[in-house]
């Protein structure tokens, strides 16, 4: 166990380092950062001063090394635009994104597990086909578009839910639904195929031969096995959701990390962009690790080899 976690942590660190390098290179794509920090109307002298002040006059590898070494101890630098430390910024906004991600994931699981189970139990019937079509609709709907439609319907026409911002739990309903929609198709399909596989399996036949009730066969024997991959993938999905929350946060004006990233890109505020990429990657890495552990805990075959 310890060994496994150490190995995974080492791999995670390696991945994080690679992502860091990529992120660093990415933000240097655009060339001279001093100019964008200086802002409109700055003179050549201002720019030179800024270049010195931010250490941008040093060779690239030195900048990179210093960034990495500081990032490793948790110092992600300062935002040029927000005039605040990046760590503070991200820490202040992470709760919103996390809430959003968890709400989205919760909703997605709440929808996809029953839906997938239903489809699998009625495999080949119109119910199954309807579920398939629904998942495909979910897959084909651009999330920003869906967000706008929800906003018009529930925010404007019906006036049930607040449209943007983060004041209360109601504020997370629509964004959560939109985010859930991005994960639901995959999770539904996974549940469905897992359930179909489970239902067709020998151990279900055994259970039937034992004369168990239908409910116990489906819920105790089949769903338990079908849910293992779903639950463990859910952690990974959460990682994807956090990465994909930019759109939702922009549409619903949630000032979370995704939105922060988007703002920073627009403002060329590269320390923030770098840091967000890094933080999201790190979260993803941790989540995959969590997912593996979860998988192992749920699946006795992995747990006790």
């Amino acid at each position, binding site marked *: 166990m310890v060994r496994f976690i150490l190995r995974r942590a080492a791999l995670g660190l390696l*991945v994080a380092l690679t992502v860091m390098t990529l992120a660093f290179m*990415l933000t240097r794509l655009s060339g001279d950062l001093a100019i964008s920090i200086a802002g409109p109307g700055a003179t050549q002298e201002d720019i030179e001063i800024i270049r010195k002040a931010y250490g941008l006059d040093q060779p690239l590898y030195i900048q990179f090394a210093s960034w990495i070494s500081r990032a490793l101890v948790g110092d992600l630098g300062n935002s040029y635009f927000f005039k605040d430390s990046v760590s503070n910024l991200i820490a202040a906004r992470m709760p919103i994104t996390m809430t959003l991600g968890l709400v989205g994931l919760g909703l997605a699981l709440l929808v996809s597990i029953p839906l997938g189970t239903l489809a699998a139990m009625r495999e080949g019937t119109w119910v199954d086909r309807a579920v*398939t079509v629904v998942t495909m609709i979910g897959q084909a709907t651009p999330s*920003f578009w869906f967000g706008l439609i929800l906003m018009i319907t529930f925010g404007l026409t019906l006036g049930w839910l607040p449209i943007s911002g983060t004041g209360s739990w109601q504020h997370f309903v629509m964004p959560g639904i939109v985010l859930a929609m991005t994960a639901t198709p995959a999770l539904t399909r996974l549940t469905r195929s897992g359930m179909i596989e489970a239902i067709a399996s020998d151990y279900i036949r055994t259970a039937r031969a034992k004369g168990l009730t239908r409910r116990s066969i489906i819920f105790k024997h089949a769903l338990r096995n079908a849910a293992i991959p779903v639950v463990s993938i859910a952690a990974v999905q959460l990682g994807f959701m956090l990465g994909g929350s930019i759109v939702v946060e922009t549409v619903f004006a949630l000032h979370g990390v995704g939105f922060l990233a988007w703002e920073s890109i627009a403002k060329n505020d590269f320390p923030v962009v770098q840091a*967000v990429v890094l933080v999201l990657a790190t979260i*993803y890495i941790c989540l*995959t690790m969590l997912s593996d552990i979860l998988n192992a805990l749920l699946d006795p075959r992995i747990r006790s080899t």
Partner: protein
Amino acid sequence: MSIAISLPPVRVRTFRVGNVGFWIGVAICSVVVLAAVVGNALVPHDPFAQNLNNRLVPPFWMEGSQPDHLLGTDQLGRDYLARLVYGARISLLIGITTMIVSGLIGTTLGILGGYFGGIVDDVVLFLITCRLSIPVVLVALAVVGLLGSSLTLVICTLGLLLWDRFAVVARSTTMQVRSLDYMNAAMCAGASTPRLLFREILPNIASHLAVVATLEIALAILFEATLSFLGLGVPAPLPSWGLMIAEGKDYMFFSSWVIMIPGVTLFIFVMGVNFVGDGLRSLLGAERPR
């Protein structure tokens, strides 16, 4: 890393008529492809010709429409039908080129990892993990935002970012095919490594890749639409459907057709591509990749 998928032995099945969804999908895609190829020859308007005196004309089913602008005009007085049809070309171009770029990268990596195993596979797995840990929308936005949007850049960025699924599927299917006895038999028959890769493995994982490819096309088109929506997709005046939605967004309350028309078209097309993918999956007997 839990990115292995399982699949049943590849079975060759003959195409059966009867998968309704598949044929609906094929029909939708054919229409779009046709529109992309010959559409603009049929529509009497230039998709780029503006007429500021004739802006936001509603489509034919609404009051105030004009007979020669079937779907009306946009905020610059450009014919909406012409732009929609031209947009098919752009969206298709983005979808297919991205799919090819990412397909080449992903399939190569996946097959190499799956076939050679060992260190090669470790490297491939590492690359896949790195790729998966990068938030796609964010990085795509950053690249396009920093370098300035252009069609080529959008395609390259998406192509370089969306190969993970190809790699995962190619890798796990290759691994499974590799362990089958016909691979052993071919090795014993003296077949060279390229022959093994191209004649024995590739045809047998092709159906799985085909399914991924269709999904990738749909994904790329949606991603481009998202980038466009966030203002960093294909640059104007190229009418990609995503950009048309983004441009029409401000008008959604009062001239809802400007967002409905491209939105619905995009939706139907992506649906169609997904139908084809889903149909292929069941017709070719390929397991659904995650």
